[in-house]
């Protein structure tokens, strides 16, 4: 449903342009204490799930069944929302309306009830959610002692009041926090209040007695929330990390090769470690030189420490995925140069830049990567490439190749590096292969770029896969359309054997292994049918269709005829039955 902005409803006058979900959320807020908490939770869940109409009808059903009396303002807003959602107004006509709603005053406990603090367990339960939801500014807990609604649940009932800023999403916050609590075995109603919007009496009274959950604790502060968020993602990443654990050793050998020229390389292992556990270690690197020098000796311990730093966690995430892909080539070189030439303070920036380019290599953000590389590594790169280049480059290249094989450069971050030490020649291959496995022309272009780091990266991105595949596809497309008009147009272009081969070659470059296999199978089938012309005619409809799709040329000779004869094929009707013989 589109969310139409309007300025109707309680509290909406001050917020023109409010979207429908927020209006419904505000309406639900005004119902708090007068409907049972489960009804509000269900309605908010529907609201957060973009089921606005269902949420409104559910709310109306609860109001009708519970004989809840609304104020004219509330009913008017509900009617407006029903109209906006094209819902049947008959349902809300039965809701009782009064000029002034006299709702009893709810009682809230100040502090613990029966020895149980309202905030107990809440912090731990919502920690992972707080890291995801934006602009949460405060959280309060309180026990409500009085029942709410005609079908109230048991009391005391826990309430969680969440304050959000303008960047927050009230419906989503209410649902996610409530769901997180429920999963943790905590039944509570979550009331999300927008900063700057005057709460109703119910919420004001609750706030008077509520206890605030300290956001300063670990995992709650904003900066901390982000780390918590990072940690959550790290966890999934770690499962994938199992391969990385093996990688660190791999990386080390690469370092060793590099280190051999350079005696002091306690620092080198760090840069590599980040690949396995990128966020943590890399972050410390950048900071280590700045804040604490002693960390360098602790290549591994920093892992524990890095988490505490909160502002940085943002960096680690990007690093993870990126380093796996591109690191092999560039990370090592920058390391070499950086470690040798520059002091620790300088090292930090270098590390950052090196990491960045790594990321860029795999994706398609070459431009940004190249620049940082050039800046930081310009000097070291040439020197390294000359002396150490063989060792470093070799691992890098093989690593890339391995990544290619896996088609999952993602996973193969560690593997490529290991292999790379064995093979020396083609970094370029690896790089090229990553984006697009088969791109011979690209490779030729890249080799020159290899010598200077910055230059290398640029040529890759520019000349590589992105440009090449596009033109190829374009070429293939024009051919396809004719082939689709099944018989007549398709066969003609296909007749040209050279065209077919070329197109197939292009297709091979573009398609992945699975698609290639499919093409091979198709070609095999075509060859069989070519050998057996009569049989092919009998089942011509199938073949004709395929040729029209994938490669006209390949199927040109034998299949064209069935296609041409097979206008019957169009609707999938069995053409082979008698149409061919008859024809």
């Amino acid at each position, binding site marked *: 449903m589109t969310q139409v902005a309007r300025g109707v409803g309680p509290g909406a006058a001050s917020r023109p342009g409010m979207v429908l979900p927020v209006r419904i959320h505000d309406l639900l807020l005004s119902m708090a204490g007068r409907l049972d908490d489960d009804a509000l939770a*269900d309605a908010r869940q529907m609201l957060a799930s973009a089921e606005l109409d*269902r949420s409104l009808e559910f709310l109306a059903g609860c109001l*009708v069944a519970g004989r809840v009396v609304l104020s004219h303002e509330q009913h008017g807003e509900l009617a407006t929302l029903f109209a906006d959602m094209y819902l049947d107004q*008959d349902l809300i006509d*039965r809701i009782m309306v009064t000029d002034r709603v006299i709702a009893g005053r709810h009682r809230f406990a100040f502090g613990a009830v029966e020895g149980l603090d309202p905030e107990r367990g809440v912090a731990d339960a919502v920690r992972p959610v707080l890291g995801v939801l934006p602009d949460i500014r405060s959280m309060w807990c309180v026990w409500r002692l009085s029942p709410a609604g005609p079908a109230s649940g048991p009391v005391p009932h826990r309430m969680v009041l969440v304050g959000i800023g303008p960047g927050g999403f009230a419906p989503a916050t209410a649902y996610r926090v409530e769901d997180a609590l429920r999963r943790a075995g905590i*039944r509570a109603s979550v009331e999300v209040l927008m900063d700057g919007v005057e709460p109703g009496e119910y919420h004001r009274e609750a706030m008077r007695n509520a206890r605030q959950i300290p956001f300063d604790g670990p995992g709650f502060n904003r900066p901390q929330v982000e780390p918590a968020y990072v940690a959550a993602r790290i966890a999934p990443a770690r499962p994938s990390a199992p391969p990385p654990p093996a990688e660190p050793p791999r990386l080390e050998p690469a370092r060793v090769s590099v280190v051999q020229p350079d005696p002091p390389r306690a620092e080198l292992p760090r840069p590599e470690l980040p690949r396995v556990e990128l966020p943590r270690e890399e972050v410390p690197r950048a900071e280590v030189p700045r804040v604490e020098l002693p960390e360098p000796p602790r290549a591994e311990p920093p892992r524990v420490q890095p988490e505490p730093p909160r502002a940085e966690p943002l960096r680690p995430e990007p690093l993870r995925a990126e380093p796996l892909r591109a690191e092999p080539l560039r990370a090592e070189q920058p390391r070499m140069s950086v470690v040798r030439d520059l002091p620790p303070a300088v090292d930090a920036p270098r590390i950052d830049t090196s990491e960045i380019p790594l990321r860029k290599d795999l994706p398609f953000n070459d431009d940004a990567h190249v620049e940082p590389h050039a800046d930081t590594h310009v000097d070291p790169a040439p020197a390294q490439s000359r002396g150490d280049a063989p060792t470093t480059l070799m691992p890098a290249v093989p690593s890339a190749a391995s990544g290619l094989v896996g088609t999952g450069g993602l996973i193969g971050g560690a593997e490529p590096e290991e292999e790379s030490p064995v093979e020396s020649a083609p970094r370029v291959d690896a790089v090229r292969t990553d984006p697009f496995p088969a791109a011979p022309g690209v490779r030729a272009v890249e080799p020159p770029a290899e010598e200077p780091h910055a230059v290398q990266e640029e040529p890759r991105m520019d000349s590589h896969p992105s440009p090449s595949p596009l033109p190829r596809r374009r070429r293939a497309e024009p051919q396809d359309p004719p082939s689709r008009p099944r018989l007549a147009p398709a066969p003609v272009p296909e007749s040209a054997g050279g065209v077919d081969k070329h197109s197939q070659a292009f297709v091979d470059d573009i398609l992945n292994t699975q698609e290639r296999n499919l093409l091979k199978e198709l070609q095999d089938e075509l060859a069989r049918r070519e050998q057996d012309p009569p049989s092919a005619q009998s089942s011509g409809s199938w073949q004709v269709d395929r040729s029209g799709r994938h490669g006209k040329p390949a199927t040109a000779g034998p299949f064209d005829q069935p296609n041409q004869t097979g206008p019957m094929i169009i609707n999938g009707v069995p053409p082979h039955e008698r149409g061919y013989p008859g024809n």
Partner: protein
Amino acid sequence: MDDRVDACHELLLRLAGRLPDRQLWRLRDWLAGEALDALARALPLTLLRERVAITARESMLLNAALLDAGADAGRLHAVPWVDQIDEVDYTFTSESPERVNLGDSEAVVLGAVLHGRSELVDVRGSWRRHRSGLGPTTRIVLVTASTGCARLTGELQRVLRALGTYEPGVEVMPEGIELTPYHRAALAASESLLPGVIVHQG
């Protein structure tokens, strides 16, 4: 109106164990609150969303109860049919392993609420657990009544909710109704909820 309410109650009774408790108790609460028009809009959509197939008998009840109450005919016709419902996803026991040595305050309150009601035929209790072994053990209150089943259901549900059962399982069966496999299994493993109290009005 009464006919439609009775038909809808029978339909909701038959959906026990097939619709999530969280939704089923709410729909029954609406029926007890005479919000048949709200049910007419919500129930077909719920059946469709939960992908619950209904039998021919249930389809007849659905149409009889909700079509005139404002239900979308398109949604009603979209609910898939099934020949019969044989599978029960739950097992029932007469005692809860979790409450062996605890006082049954729910039974006390239910006994107080139901005392002296002429429409009651029998009040029994059973404990339900999912066949997978997952999830909590849920008390199922099995009441047989002669009239006012929908209203009694809502009343008992609210009592149980106030006592801490957020999604109460209250099955008020009209006397003489053909029971579903779910209810037969529950009754087979049930015990009197109010021992010592003669409910049957004979």
